[in-house]
């Protein structure tokens, strides 16, 4: 019996809404609330500000505030409390894949973000690629004048290549795969990861390992000679070379990984965040970022826009033996691998 009244009210509401939305003034540029972009700081974030945020603000009038460093504890606290301070966050690849499942992020609005141009390796329902990079073998040329290390097996050969080695400290894709590859595992048989085998291999050089916990530290270790060889992010070695440190790089079996952009669940400016993602992943923005930082674009059309000297240092030049780290596998097994990793490290 209530029906006719409800229908009436509904139609009225619809009409009112239609009228209001048509006659209301378009959002005044200056009045739009700013969005907050959280990333890891340093020159990477400065580049993100310059090549993504600035053009975005210019085109849309929405200001982008920089915050950081990205902290998953903070993110979780925000989502739990319902008072989400960040609108777009740059996170690690394996975290991004797990984040949607764990209810920490919003699904990406692919009607706003152009899917067709993006590298399918770095795209998922809950996250879109920020930039990608490769783990490569780096060494100090001066320390290895008579024969340079060429592949991961050389990393584990302390006779021919003496000195401390450096690897990424945290439980994350990269080191375990390097150990397995060095032990002779075929690239297509890497996953599921044989953890026992990887740890056993790493045990052979454990006393010679110095762990780097951040990009800056990896560069410091290489530059100071503290660790004449190891596995690094390609961009960091590239930067070292540019400051005059004589670093050699072996791209043999380089391992790709990516940072991803996510929108936290309950973000206050979701729609604007999606628009920002669209800008950040656009071809020109990605190309400019790549040129500035040495990291690689996630937009397939960006390669054509890169200046020639930058293109030479990009991971996609070295696709011959390139291996993509399996982020989905890592996302699914993140906790158990972490447990075993830290247990092994602390022995």
């Amino acid at each position: 019996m209530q029906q006719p009244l409800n229908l009436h009210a509904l139609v009225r509401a619809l009409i009112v809404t239609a009228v209001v939305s048509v006659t209301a003034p378009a959002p005044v540029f200056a009045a739009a609330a700013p969005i907050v972009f959280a990333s890891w700081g340093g020159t990477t974030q400065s580049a993100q500000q310059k090549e993504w945020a600035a053009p975005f603000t210019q085109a849309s009038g929405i200001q982008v505030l920089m915050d950081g460093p990205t902290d998953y504890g903070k993110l979780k606290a925000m989502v739990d409390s319902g008072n989400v301070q960040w609108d777009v966050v740059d996170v690690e690849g394996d975290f991004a894949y797990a984040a949607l499942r764990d209810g920490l992020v919003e699904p990406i609005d692919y009607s706003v973000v152009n899917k067709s141009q993006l590298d399918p390796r770095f795209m998922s329902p809950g996250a879109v690629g920020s930039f990608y990079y490769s783990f490569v073998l780096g060494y100090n040329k001066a320390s290895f004048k008579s024969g340079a290390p060429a592949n991961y097996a050389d990393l584990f050969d302390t006779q021919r290549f003496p000195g401390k080695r450096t690897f990424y400290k945290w439980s994350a894709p990269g080191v375990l795969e390097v150990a397995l590859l060095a032990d002779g595992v075929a690239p297509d048989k890497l996953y599921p990861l044989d953890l026992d085998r990887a740890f056993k291999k790493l045990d052979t050089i454990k006393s010679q390992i110095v762990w780097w916990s951040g990009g800056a530290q990896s560069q410091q270790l290489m530059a100071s000679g503290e660790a004449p060889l190891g596995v690094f992010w390609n961009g960091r070695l590239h930067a070292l070379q540019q400051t005059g440190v004589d670093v050699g790089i072996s791209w043999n079996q380089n391992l790709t990984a990516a940072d991803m952009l996510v929108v936290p669940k309950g973000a206050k400016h979701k729609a604007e965040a999606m628009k920002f993602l669209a800008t950040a992943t656009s071809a020109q923005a990605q190309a400019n970022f790549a040129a500035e930082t040495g990291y690689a674009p996630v937009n397939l059309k960006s390669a054509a826009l890169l200046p020639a000297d930058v293109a030479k240092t990009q991971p996609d030049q070295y696709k011959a033996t390139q291996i993509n780290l399996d982020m989905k596998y890592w996302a699914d097994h993140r906790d158990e691998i972490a447990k075993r990793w830290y247990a092994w490290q602390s022995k």
Partner: protein
Amino acid sequence: MSNAVSTVAEPRVSLPKVSAGFRRARLVLPALLLLIVFFLLPVLSLLLRSVLDPSPGLQNYAQLFGSTTYLRVFGNTFFVASVVTAVTLVIGFPTAWLLAMAPRWISKLVFAILLLSMWTNLLARTFAWMVLLQQTGPINRLLMWLGVIHEPLTLVNNLTGVTIGMTYIMLPFLVMPLHATLRAIDPTTLRAAAICGASRWQAFWRVLVPLAMPGIASGALMVFVMALGYFVTPALLGGPEYMMLAELIAQLVQQLLNWGLAGAAAFVLLLVTLSLYAVQLRFSGRAPGASGVH
């Protein structure tokens, strides 16, 4: 006003003892309220997660005590904290002693140096040690140049680095209160000991140290407790072999997002430390001469 001379033996003339006690008790309220609202309640709700997250029960504690990794981290933490406290005491006591009785210009100079080192930002000091202790760093270079060693020592990213770094940070925290205590000791007590025939050694161990014990104990406890929960220096100068609890908990909170387990680990640490504090109280009680002069 009653005759001042005849009442000199009685305590405070004006206020009865009970209301004075109450008045003083009230003083604690502002600090107490602050801690209850902004510390106890938020932290309790996090610690509660240790028995609620991911499901009600004691699984997190079972996990904590059942895993050799976590137990080892606990053990390491106490071990490192003990080492740091011992080293700090050995270095700090003579320094505090010097400060307490050296000629003014010497003690002022040392004090100024102490302050200067404290004033320099913690992170800056720590990364200075990172560079100093490198294999290619100045300390190794100096030792090799002097011929003391032939291969560079690994002084950082391990226990040595953490100990040096943490002792460096903690030293002022021990020296400053300790030197105040030592200064408050009446030299006549020691002179009396000498007159009674005590040798220097006896006077040191049986008069000076007991009198300084409140300062030593509170300084040592402060250093130990700080070292237990310390995060920055072990994170930058240590290696994973001696991972300390603070870093483990940071990982659980900020990377693995396992707040239940983090709460459990924090709670266990809290419990152990507070029991240590209770033990210390019981043993030291109040030394008879603690209030200085009678």
